[in-house]
């Protein structure tokens, strides 16, 4: 922010307009966007999907899709007008001064070329080849903290984990020592602990390198930890801009205010009130916008907002495109926060799992995906499953649903009756009592049927309804997930992600289930939509007394919805207890590390517990406590030799650790462990 006044900026966008040609018409995606990024500055760009964030990035490097074109304005990269460059000059600019890292590193690396070759070709562009290029590549991999660069060079991308792939992608981006580094959702889709690692790496590299950074993310917390300044994009326009802390703590545009309210923050829980949502939808691309683009969704909007485009008001070092910027925070809630918490009568558990194991055979080795899991679930209760990828969360859910049979010996009881291990041996009642909502509603809904058909079929199959009864139940169900009749006639692809997820939820609820497994149901959704879905799940739960098994990598979301948490690591429960106890601690060192990895909006301290290395292979789990290889609180040989029991530390709260509960409490109330202070 202090550099923005310097004569030369790393990036200057002036009145930039970009359009995509769809059905023969140019449709505006970016509208007169102006922003500058100073030398060495990190600038964050946030907003919901579809607001034009990635288009900004692609425009800067001139890699718009075939139907995209720059319809006005100017881009100046390091003082060079990017739009005037011919093909060769543009290639040189890409080779020398600007680099980009984006989402999904698995796709960004060429699958059929070895990692080393993909790196050395960059140095060859600069005239360094052979041995020297290899040395430079190894040095680069060292720089992104890859511990065994020589062997990584020999591997293909698919042989690396997601975190390693993203490190390689970052190494490739930094290989030409760019003056401008564009990061487009670089950690989206990575595990929380891996995300933390990659963010740490970027933060460290920032201090070593001179590059300016354009950081694009839908995750406000990530941006708040990484960036000096932030711009909020809405419908291709900048609606607010300013120093990160100032914008997030004292927002001056109703959109920013609303976005921040959608997030479950500060350990908020479902019984403490609903999340706020943003009504309506983002204007489609190319929409004709007369006044303020946000007016239709804003409770503060008046006639002037709807007819006249607000200017960017300069509020002293920060900007807001709102006539009512002085009272933006008085934005009324879109969703009332009241919930009537129903005191849960003590009832018999709806689900009881005892000594559940699942062993897969993998190349002659036994892979214990789930080991010795026992737990209970009460009616109307939510169990949150937490852990990194590969910890066994999804396998556990599949065992419950009967999609894969568990090893002999374990039992699953539904409402006191034992469930057959396989789905085909379960009765219809048992099948409809347990349903699932997936992460990606796109692949879960048959695209060739209408919504009415999809939900109707579920009612026919699961509830055995037909005729009038089906019609009336269908209408109830549709209303309870807040879809309207208008949505019933259309096919899934005509609906937004959030609406599709509502259809998936309606379908799961068609047979009055007792338990619904939610496998990352909001991970593919924007925060405002996520808030609406979480509210919906909470409402349905209090109405129907249904239980959830909720899987998510977003701990704030898990915390909001869960009554009980199970933390899994290598298929074992490391900690099991009431949500509040698990989150507020004292907790298992693994839980502690997971929580510490989460970027938080309202915290600035950066001393996180870093989990080194990757989750060990389940075919060859570490001896003793399986977590000892990565545990920052390891106490000694006992951790390596003896597996601790899942012992009840307090009533209902069990921890699998050799460190006594009182000792954990003492350790965790003071500083993070020494290793993490570096």
């Amino acid at each position: 922010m202090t550099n923005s006044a310097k004569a030369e900026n790393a990036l200057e966008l002036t009145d930039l307009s970009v359009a995509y040609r769809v059905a023969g018409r140019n449709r505006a995606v970016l509208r007169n966007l102006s922003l500058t990024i100073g030398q060495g500055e990190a600038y964050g760009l946030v907003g919901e999907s579809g607001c034009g964030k990635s288009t900004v990035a692609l425009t800067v490097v001139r890699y718009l899709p075939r139907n995209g074109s720059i319809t006005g304005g100017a881009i100046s990269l390091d003082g060079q007008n990017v739009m005037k460059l011919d093909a060769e000059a543009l290639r040189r600019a890409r080779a020398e001064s600007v680099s980009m890292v984006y989402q999904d590193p698995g796709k960004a690396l060429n699958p059929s070329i070895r990692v080393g070759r993909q790196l050395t070709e960059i140095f060859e562009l600069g005239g360094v080849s052979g041995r020297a290029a290899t040395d430079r590549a190894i040095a680069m991999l060292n720089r992104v903290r890859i511990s065994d660069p020589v062997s990584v060079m020999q591997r293909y991308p698919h042989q690396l984990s997601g975190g390693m792939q993203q490190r390689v992608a970052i190494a490739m981006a930094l290989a030409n020592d760019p003056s401008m580094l564009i990061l487009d959702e670089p950690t989206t889709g990575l595990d929380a602990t891996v995300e933390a690692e990659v963010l740490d790496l970027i933060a460290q590299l920032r201090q070593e390198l001179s590059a300016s950074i354009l950081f694009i993310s839908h995750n406000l917390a990530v941006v708040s930890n990484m960036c000096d300044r932030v711009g909020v994009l809405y419908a291709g326009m900048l609606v607010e801009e300013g120093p990160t802390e100032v914008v997030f703590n004292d927002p001056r545009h109703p959109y920013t205010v609303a976005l921040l309210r959608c997030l479950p923050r500060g350990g908020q829980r479902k019984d403490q009130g609903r999340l706020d949502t943003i009504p309506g939808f983002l204007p489609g691309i190319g929409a004709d916008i007369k006044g303020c683009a946000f007016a239709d969704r804003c409770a503060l909007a008046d006639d002037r907002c709807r007819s006249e485009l607000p200017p960017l008001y300069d509020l002293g070092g920060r900007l807001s495109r709102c006539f009512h910027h002085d009272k933006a925070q008085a934005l009324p809630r879109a969703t009332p926060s009241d919930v009537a918490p129903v005191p849960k009568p003590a009832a018999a558990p709806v689900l009881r799992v005892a000594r559940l194991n699942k062993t897969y055979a993998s190349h002659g080795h036994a892979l214990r995906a789930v080991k010795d899991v026992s737990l209970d679930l009460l009616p109307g209760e939510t169990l949150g499953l937490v852990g990194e990828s590969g910890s066994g969360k999804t396998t556990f859910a599949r065992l419950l649903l009967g999609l894969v049979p568990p090893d002999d010996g374990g039992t699953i009881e539904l409402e006191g009756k034992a469930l057959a291990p396989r789905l085909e041996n379960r009765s219809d009642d048992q099948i409809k009592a347990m349903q699932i909502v997936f992460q990606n509603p796109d692949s879960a809904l048959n695209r060739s049927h209408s919504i009415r058909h999809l939900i109707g079929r579920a009612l026919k199959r699961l509830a055995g309804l037909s005729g009038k009864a089906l019609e009336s139940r269908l209408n109830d169900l549709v209303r309870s997930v807040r879809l309207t009749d208008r949505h019933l006639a259309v096919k899934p692809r005509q609906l937004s992600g959030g609406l599709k997820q509502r259809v998936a939820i309606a379908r799961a609820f068609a047979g009055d289930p007792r338990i619904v497994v939610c496998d990352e149901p909001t991970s593919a959704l924007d925060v405002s939509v996520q808030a609406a879905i979480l509210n919906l799940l909470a409402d349905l739960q209090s109405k129907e007394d249904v239980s959830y098994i909720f899987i998510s990598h977003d701990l704030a979301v898990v915390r909001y919805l869960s009554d009980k948490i199970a933390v899994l690591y290598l298929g074992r429960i490391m900690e099991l207890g009431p949500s509040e106890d698990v989150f507020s601690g004292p907790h298992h060192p693994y839980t502690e590390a997971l929580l510490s990895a989460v970027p938080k909006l309202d915290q600035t301290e950066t001393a996180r517990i870093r989990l080194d290395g990757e989750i060990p292979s389940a075919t060859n789990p570490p001896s003793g406590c399986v977590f000892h290889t990565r545990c920052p609180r390891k106490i000694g040989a006992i951790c390596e030799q003896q597996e601790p029991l899942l012992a009840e530390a307090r009533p209902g709260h069990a921890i699998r650790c050799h460190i006594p509960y009182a000792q954990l409490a003492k350790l965790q109330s003071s500083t993070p462990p020494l290793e993490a202070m570096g």
Partner: protein
Amino acid sequence: MVFLGGQVLPGNVGRAILGPFADQGAVDTLNHTLGVDRPLLTQYWSWISNFVQGDMGTSYIYRSPVAPLVVDALGNSVKLAFVAFVLVIPIGILGGAVAALNLNRPLDRIITLGGLSMTVLPEFVTGIILILIFGVWLRWLPISAAWPHDAGFFRQLYHLILPSMPLFLVLFGYVGRMARSGMIEALDSDYTRTAVLKGLPWRTVIWRHVLRNALLPTITVIATQTGYLIGGLVVIETLFRYQGVGSLIFTAARGKDFPILVSGTLVVGIVYAVATLAADFLYSMLNPRISLGNEQ
């Protein structure tokens, strides 16, 4: 399968060979000599055990061992298929790649539409047109694929150009379309974006990053066409009077010559299986994501 199919077909082998006026006793005697009056399983067993030893039996029609007939025909078929492949693989891939690089421009439309219309035209139509143009009118190429006995390699090649043209036209559409869609997918991929944003020259991006990934699916398609090229060319072989496996099997089927029919079909099946296997090997060599069974 073919063996069983041949058995349930109506008609009597002995009757077919000796003609309708032969004495029933002679027919029965012949049937007994040929062994076709034995139980089905016995026949099958003796046939399959002989086959794996290289003895394919004796042809009913030609009255000579089947093996040399099938082997000769197979050799001819392989030559024709080879010429067709040599033509279609590079040109088809090139056409598809050029089309993809000029996506939705006139050149793309010409290649795609042209390839597609050639594919849907039956080969006897294109074959006849080509014969008329090059063989009859221009007199550049011989209209018969059968070359003189002493013909050398180039002479044989010269005779095979015209018959392989219709095959090329049929296959160009397939190969070109696969290559085109593979290229489009690869060009739109994130790794191509990465390569471009590295500042690599366009030529390097295409040759190093796009082509290899783009052509993987095309290899499979080419392999599946091998069976067609070896055994399915009855029309072309008849049209150009060429002794390939296709026409051999066809003649055998008409004359109820089971030994040739069954052995020929089996040989085509084996060739097809081998070609598919070879394609799978090639595919896994080019695609590092598939490792053959053992972990790295």
